[in-house]
């Protein structure tokens, strides 16, 4: 019999291990196993230490310019004014791009997620096509979205020009897959009994989604949306392509008019200058950027912890 042969193997090895332990020889390969454990643990530690190093280095390198001028003053290109040069236009630009991005991508992404989770027939070919294109878009390099923004949004069919909303829309396409995937997970975690109960009381499918499923999944959706925004706020490559100016000494006039710049592009511009004083500014800018990101992330974690519903 096959299973008795398996049992015999198991018995033999169990006896073998027990014998070795009793004779004081230790588990076979204990040293090798410990070395392996240390090796895999060090992989995690390398990643964490690097994260701390990036933050620590930015604080040390940018320390001289971590002051209020950094937040309240406009960028200046003159060397004599470097001590008072700031990031105001970049910070305002980033916040405006984020606002335009949020109002664009959230309705679109959540609607797509609701369709795919609640209404789509998983067997149909067009559902498969949609799913594969979402998965593919999630891994398309951000610079390619920049090319799309340059050819179709800034110029071409939409021709918005180099304005804040061009940046918003380009980044919206970039983070759309993230919003769809995280919203779908939030919707999927709502137990089916809620849906069945609602429909048993006579609600239609849409009313069930609107009154039962969506209210419960909102915290998960918000968490995902914040993570998507925090990814977008650090993106520079697509924005360089749509003509985000590298040197703007005024805040954007509006969503559809006027030149604008954003934090990561301003940091890139400073880093590409030969003068070391600009590098100090760039490092200080990195701190501002990471501080914005960490507060967004903590907010997401807070929402998730506070509003999670247990069934």
């Amino acid at each position, binding site marked *: 019999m096959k299973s008795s042969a398996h049992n015999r193997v198991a018995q033999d090895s169990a006896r073998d291990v027990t014998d070795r332990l009793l004779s004081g020889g230790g588990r076979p390969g204990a040293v090798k196993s410990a070395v392996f454990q240390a090796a895999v643990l060090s992989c995690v530690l390398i990643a964490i230490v690097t994260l701390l190093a990036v933050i620590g280095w930015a604080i040390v390198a940018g320390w001289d310019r971590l002051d209020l001028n950094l937040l309240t003053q406009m960028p200046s290109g003159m060397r004599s004014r470097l001590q008072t040069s700031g990031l105001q236009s970049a910070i305002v630009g980033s916040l405006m791009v984020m606002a335009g991005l949020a109002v664009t991508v959230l309705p679109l992404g959540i609607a797509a997620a609701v369709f795919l989770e609640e209404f789509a027939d998983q067997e149909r070919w067009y559902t498969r096509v949609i799913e594969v294109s979402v998965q593919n878009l999630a891994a*398309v390099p951000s610079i390619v979205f920049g090319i*799309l923004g340059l*050819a179709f949004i800034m110029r071409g069919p939409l021709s918005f020009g180099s304005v804040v909303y061009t940046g918003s829309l380009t980044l919206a396409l970039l983070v759309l897959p993230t919003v769809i995937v995280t919203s779908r997970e939030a919707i999927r975690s709502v137990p089916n009994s809620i849906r069945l109960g609602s429909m048993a009381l006579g609600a239609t499918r849409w009313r069930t989604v609107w009154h039962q499923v969506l209210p419960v999944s909102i915290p998960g959706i918000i968490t995902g949306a914040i993570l998507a925004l925090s990814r977008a706020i650090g993106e520079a490559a697509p924005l360089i392509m749509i003509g985000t100016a590298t040197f703007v000494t005024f805040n954007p006039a509006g969503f559809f008019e006027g030149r604008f710049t954003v934090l990561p592009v301003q940091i890139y511009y400073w880093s590409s200058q030969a003068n070391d004083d600009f590098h100090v500014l760039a490092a200080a800018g990195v701190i501002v950027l990471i501080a914005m990101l960490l507060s967004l992330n903590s907010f997401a974690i807070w929402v998730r912890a506070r509003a999670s519903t247990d069934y």
Partner: protein
Amino acid sequence: MTVSPTASSAATPILRATRPRWGEQVIVGGLFVAAAFSVLVTGAIIAALLGPSLEFFAQISFAEFLRKGIWAPRQGEFAVFNLVAGTLNVTMYALIVAIPGGLGAAVWLSEYAGPGARKTVKPILEVLEGVPTVAYGLFAYLFVTPILQRIWPTFLPGALGEPPGIFSSGAAGLVMGIMLIPTIASVSEDAMRAVPSGMRQAAYGLGANRLQVATKVVVPGALSGIMAAFVLGVSRGIGETMLVLIAAGATAQFTLLPNESVQTMTAFIARTATGDIATGTMDYYVIFAVGALLFVFTFTMNMATIALVRRFRETYE
């Protein structure tokens, strides 16, 4: 849906809507349009790349583009091989760091970490994944490169023994590798956790230790998922822009040495297309041709990833 009262006496009740819900149909139609928008975006990307690329290839032949030679678009030299080599150079050094690092981190998270440690470490890795690449670029350029210049093993033979200049593919690759660890770790770990615990218990029951369970049961069992993680890592590395733009330089040359300045496909696109580029010039067309090549590379790899992930899902779920 309601049960019509006349049917309640029949053996099988007829379930149907009392009246068609046109409003509902319109809403579902709207949701479908939102979902189909991703397909539209994919189509728009292909269309945006294809038009100008065709213009480009009308003037420069395919063979002239895909050859080894000089890359100097302003002088009419379009041998893209140097940019591809630059991309491969940086990505190769990144993967030397990211593959063992990401795999090791995934093994630790799935096989060694207790629930408490997992709960602490996973959010940290998520933050690491979310750090803007412009910050990594600056870190590589202003922190890692000076260190490499100081500790470079100058006893190495030939060109390899020269310390790197202010731009080097090695510094960019090293930092990119660490940047990719969380990505590779999280996809590999998902696959490892999908391996049924019965397989682990059987191995432990046979007297295997953790090392043997991890390397002989879990890793082979999750192989297609781990391959997907590697392919995703390559795809991310090839597509990374700001890090290489800041730290790897702008010298389009064919070299695999870590101490040389190289230009990648993405860095070329970002450096050339700065928004005020004139439409209809060769400068304009060439960024689309390079972009199309980049898209073909990453698209192929994304499709491979999707197929591999589907395979491990099908195996165990």
